[in-house]
């Protein structure tokens, strides 16, 4: 980007929340299901395992379940996540918020930030498989449907997130 545009402010959180809720409602009405993110990664994982080590699929109900007929581009959640990336890109482009960067605390090096980011991502991956979903599929979707497991997930996730954030708060200052 050659011209410098000062980025606009983020939307009011309640307005964005209602907007997000209407998208979730439209998904329930039109597709009979809510939002998701981890399912798309599970579909990609299942596709990778079948391509690289098809023997490992045997006896693995989880991977078999997440293997979509006709390839990952015919998987509902994979297509939805591609939409997420396009939607986010367009929103950031319009707001002048597109920029290549690594966001981190002032006293944290890029290497440290990326190392912790990878570890955090991997832990979330383990948690999302065990819990059968993440913040999108469990917390948002299951939460709106009053699913007991979704609210247990929200409680467990927020409790440890506060604890870990307390122990690591200096890495963000």
């Amino acid at each position, binding site marked *: 980007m050659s011209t410098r545009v000062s980025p606009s402010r983020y939307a009011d959180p309640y307005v964005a929340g209602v907007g997000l809720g209407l998208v979730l409602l439209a998904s329930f009405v039109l597709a009979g299901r809510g939002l998701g993110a981890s399912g798309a*990664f599970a579909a990609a994982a299942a596709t990778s395992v079948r391509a690289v080590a098809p023997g490992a699929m045997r006896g693995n109900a*989880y991977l078999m379940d997440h293997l979509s007929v006709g390839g990952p581009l015919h998987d509902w959640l994979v297509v939805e996540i591609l939409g997420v990336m396009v939607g986010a890109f367009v929103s950031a482009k319009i707001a002048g918020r597109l920029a290549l960067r690594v966001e981190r605390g002032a006293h944290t090096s890029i290497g440290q930030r990326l190392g912790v980011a*990878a570890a955090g991502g991997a832990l979330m991956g383990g948690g999302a498989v065990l819990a059968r979903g993440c913040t999108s599929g469990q917390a948002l979707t299951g939460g709106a449907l009053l699913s007991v497991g979704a609210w247990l997930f929200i409680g467990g996730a927020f409790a440890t997130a506060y604890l870990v954030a307390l122990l690591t708060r200096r890495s963000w200052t």
Partner: protein
Amino acid sequence: MSAPLPLSLATGSGGALAVAFGVGLGFGWWLERAGLGSAPKLMGQFHLTDLTVFKVMFSAIVTAMLGLFWLARAGVVDLSRVYVPETFVLPQIVGGAVFGGGMALAGLCPGTSCVAAATGRGDGLVVAGGFFAGVLATALALPGMARFYESGARGSLTLDAVLDLETGSMVLVVVAAALAGFVVAEHVEQWKARRLAQVER
């Protein structure tokens, strides 16, 4: 005919995938609008400086819940055809706890890591890569943890059934809790801002 439409029958799987893409567009748009593609902003939730995560999440939950409740009441939506995620008590508490620890380290969740990556953030891309590796490794290890993974199975259990409340009363309780939460959130942000101002002085 009532919703949800059997889209795959009505328009072929192409119709269902078009809905998936459209829903994704809206999802990504609003996450980016709210600033949730930014790890420092998301961490404000856990440092109590910026409770956007809570406000966005719970206004979205309340909006979708109320919309679905009234559309079902009006006979527009057949709730029996909306998939309610199944409950597995222990795996979801433990999985949630592991997930939350990872989220506080990453500063992003899986959905927002995709938003971060799509808007040029390298840390978002790395979180998404780590998440993929974690899902892959855990999925491969899952047959060895089958007993734990399947423990506490309760089916599509909902809060109103557990608390023995009418669905309408349960919806009211969640709305009231969210509204109270919003009031508390505004106060916490102001209190934290005052405290930080005092420390700087």
